[in-house]
């Protein structure tokens, strides 16, 4: 047929039809035909990373900051195995990513060829779905299905493995709207979904005396409209609301109903309110172990409503009374209309005394820390960063550890999609490439990676990427020369034996920045801090700001492993009872 094109051309054409503007990748032998086709076109921009692991985190950062699907292109063998961490990360945090991997030619598969690996086998448990495409004529339909699956229902990563001969072979291209995806392969709630359950839930809320909304990342994945609707519902009820690490920004921090984050390092008032509430409304969260603490003491006296798009999250760890399967914005929209239709009101007297109780917990001021002296406290560094960037459109990414928790506690988010952090998998090295992706997707915004000295070194090679594409990403390192969270657990649970958690032989981060022709800044005392932050913001270049913070600061408040919501530790002096400490030690 005359209108046949090569597999590589089908790849590019499919991406273009799917509206893809940017691909993060790294070339290699098994994807050369695709790179050759990429060279001959201008509609799709390619961002060359310095290690494939960076490509997939960048795609995640791009996806989460823009709401679009992130696309990754890497070669076979090591190219594919290097993206496994990022795929797992995207799977855990429900990020829509399509990852294209090259594969050795079809006839060599199974022969242990150079740079061959069983990519679909390795990635099966860490993708929502994956494909090995052996027929060039199926390539375009696989691509269109892959994008739909990545975005549909609970989003996630999808991988397409393409042998090199298929990239060269000629075949027919089928357009997106000609592809019919069977309904069982997608999540498609019927229009009248869960009507009775929604009515039951709304009635339950109207009768609550001590309600609390527990908001998760599902609200962000459902799109900006979902956040608006969730805010509307909460305002109608006048109920307190707490958010998970993934849900920060769904309700603004300054909102009068917001109690901030809950969970292991969440706010005291949020955890106490979860413990004592009588109706809990979980919207798009999954009762993660970082949130629940000890299960047998989790919110013992409440009726629980759980809205989730993934049915497997219902009754997985916590049994609920009213499960609702569906997309947040559709379900919440219906809840609002039921509330209005039935003219429900809430018992304002009870609600008032509930708020009085909560305000007493708030008065404990759980984030309070000793800020004496010239040495910079890490909490103070994040507070200053927030104060000096709050009037700018700012995206914050993080690595994983103490700095991540301080960022979650002290940086105030008013909008969804502005906060990008690895929650489920907890991937050190996520933040910097994610910031690169966020900056590519939002060229005019300020993008700051709040990092630790240990985490940043896990993907420091991406400095080259940031410089090559002139990305003014800011790396804000809270440098305490420790893997801080490891050190904190060793202090609290392992007798202060700091086994391998001191990060010896750190580079000079200022010189490191300069060696990449970026700008390096350093703050050693509180006197330098504001100047460094301001200079960092004003610099139109990649910046590493090395903030020397107190070395042995702990992240509080904390629910230690094995403890319950109402057993929060507010400071080091408050010891966990020995029995639950011993039990907790074996947990993660």
């Amino acid at each position, binding site marked *: 047929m005359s209108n046949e094109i090569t597999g590589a051309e089908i790849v590019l054409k499919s991406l273009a039809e799917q509206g893809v503007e940017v691909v993060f990748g790294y070339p290699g032998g098994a994807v050369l035909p695709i790179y050759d086709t990429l060279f001959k076109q201008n509609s799709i921009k390619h961002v060359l990373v310095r290690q494939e692991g960076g490509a997939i985190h960048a795609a995640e950062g791009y996806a989460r900051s823009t709401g679009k699907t992130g696309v990754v292109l890497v070669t076979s063998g090591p190219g594919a195995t290097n993206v496994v961490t990022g795929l797992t990360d995207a799977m855990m945090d429900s990020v829509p990513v399509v990852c294209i991997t090259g594969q050795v030619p079809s006839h060599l598969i199974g022969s242990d060829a150079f740079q061959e690996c069983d990519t679909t086998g390795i990635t099966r448990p860490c993708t929502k779905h994956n494909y090995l495409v052996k027929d060039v004529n199926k390539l375009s339909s696989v691509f269109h299905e892959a994008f739909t699956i990545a975005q549909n229902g609970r989003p996630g990563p999808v991988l397409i493995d393409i042998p090199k001969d298929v990239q060269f072979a000629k075949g027919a291209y089928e357009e997106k709207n000609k592809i019919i995806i069977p309904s069982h*392969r997608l999540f498609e709630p019927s229009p009248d979904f869960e009507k009775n359950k929604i009515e039951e839930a709304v009635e339950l809320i109207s009768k609550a005396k001590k309600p609390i909304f527990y908001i998760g990342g599902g609200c962000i994945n459902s799109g900006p409209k979902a956040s608006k609707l969730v805010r509307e519902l909460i305002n109608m009820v006048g109920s307190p609301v707490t958010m998970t690490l993934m849900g920060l920004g769904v309700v603004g921090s300054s909102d009068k109903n917001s109690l901030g984050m809950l969970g292991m390092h969440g706010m005291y008032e949020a955890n106490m309110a979860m413990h004592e509430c009588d109706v809990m409304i979980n919207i798009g969260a999954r009762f993660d172990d970082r949130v629940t603490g000890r299960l047998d003491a989790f919110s013992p006296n409440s009726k629980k409503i759980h809205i989730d798009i993934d049915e497997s999250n219902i009754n997985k760890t916590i049994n609920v009374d009213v499960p609702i399967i569906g997309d947040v914005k559709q379900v919440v929209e219906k809840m609002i209309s039921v509330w209005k239709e039935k003219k429900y009101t809430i018992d304002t007297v009870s609600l008032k005394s509930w708020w009085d109780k909560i305000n007493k917990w708030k008065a404990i001021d759980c984030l309070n820390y000793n800020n004496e002296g010239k040495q910079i406290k890490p909490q103070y560094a994040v507070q200053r960063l927030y104060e000096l960037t709050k009037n700018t459109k700012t995206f914050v990414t993080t690595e994983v550890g103490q700095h991540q928790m301080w960022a979650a506690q002290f940086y105030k988010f008013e909008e969804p999609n502005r906060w990008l952090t690895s929650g489920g998998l907890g991937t050190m090295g996520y933040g910097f490439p994610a910031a690169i992706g966020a900056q590519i997707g939002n060229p005019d915004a300020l993008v700051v990676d709040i990092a630790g000295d240990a985490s940043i070194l896990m993907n420091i090679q991406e400095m080259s990427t940031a410089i090559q594409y002139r990305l003014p990403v800011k790396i804000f390192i809270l440098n305490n020369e420790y893997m801080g969270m490891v050190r904190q657990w060793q202090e609290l649970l392992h007798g202060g034996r700091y086994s391998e958690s001191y990060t010896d032989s750190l580079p000079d981060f200022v010189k490191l920045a300069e060696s990449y022709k970026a700008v390096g800044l350093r703050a050693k005392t509180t006197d330098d801090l504001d100047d460094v932050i301001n200079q960092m913001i004003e610099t139109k270049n990649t910046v590493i700001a090395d903030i020397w913070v107190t070395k042995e600061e702990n992240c509080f408040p904390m629910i230690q492993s094995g403890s319950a919501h109402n057993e929060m530790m507010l400071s080091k002096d408050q010891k966990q009872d020995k029995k639950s400490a011993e039990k907790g030690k074996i947990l993660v």
Partner: protein
Amino acid sequence: MNKSVYASPDQVSETKRHILTVLVDNEPGVLARVIGMFSGRGYNIDSLNVAEVSNDENISRITIVTHGTSEVVNQIEKQLLRIVPVHSVTNLNREDSSVEAEVALVYIYISENNKKKVYELCDFYRARKIENENNTTIFEIAGASERVNRFIKEINEITKVEIVRSGPVAISSIHKNEEE
């Protein structure tokens, strides 16, 4: 027990045997997805059976025998449904009426001493002789797993045997009637 890093607070319900039948698109890797989900999440497979059941629609039926509390089996069903090529999951324990059967091939060592007993037993269980050579005979027995178990137990008391079993396949009778 529910799966969590923390012990489950709920009363642990009784562990039972469940038969799940899973309809899947017959595409490469689909079996690996199903069994990978079991091993990855720490669930049990007691037996497993796969075969294509419809040529035109390219659909296979997987029959899985597992055991667990009702919470665990619930979770297994939901996790199976997350797999993209899975059409449907039916827990036959929840159906009012289902029929199950399996096939075993039994290689029996026969001597003059036990010959009579063996043939009587095989007759009783309606095991069919399908090969006869020298001192050994291969019998085929089909039926519910319990019946096969009993047969094997009794024949073992008489003589040495070697066994291969298909594991059960099952179908819901009620379900079929409703569809028609």
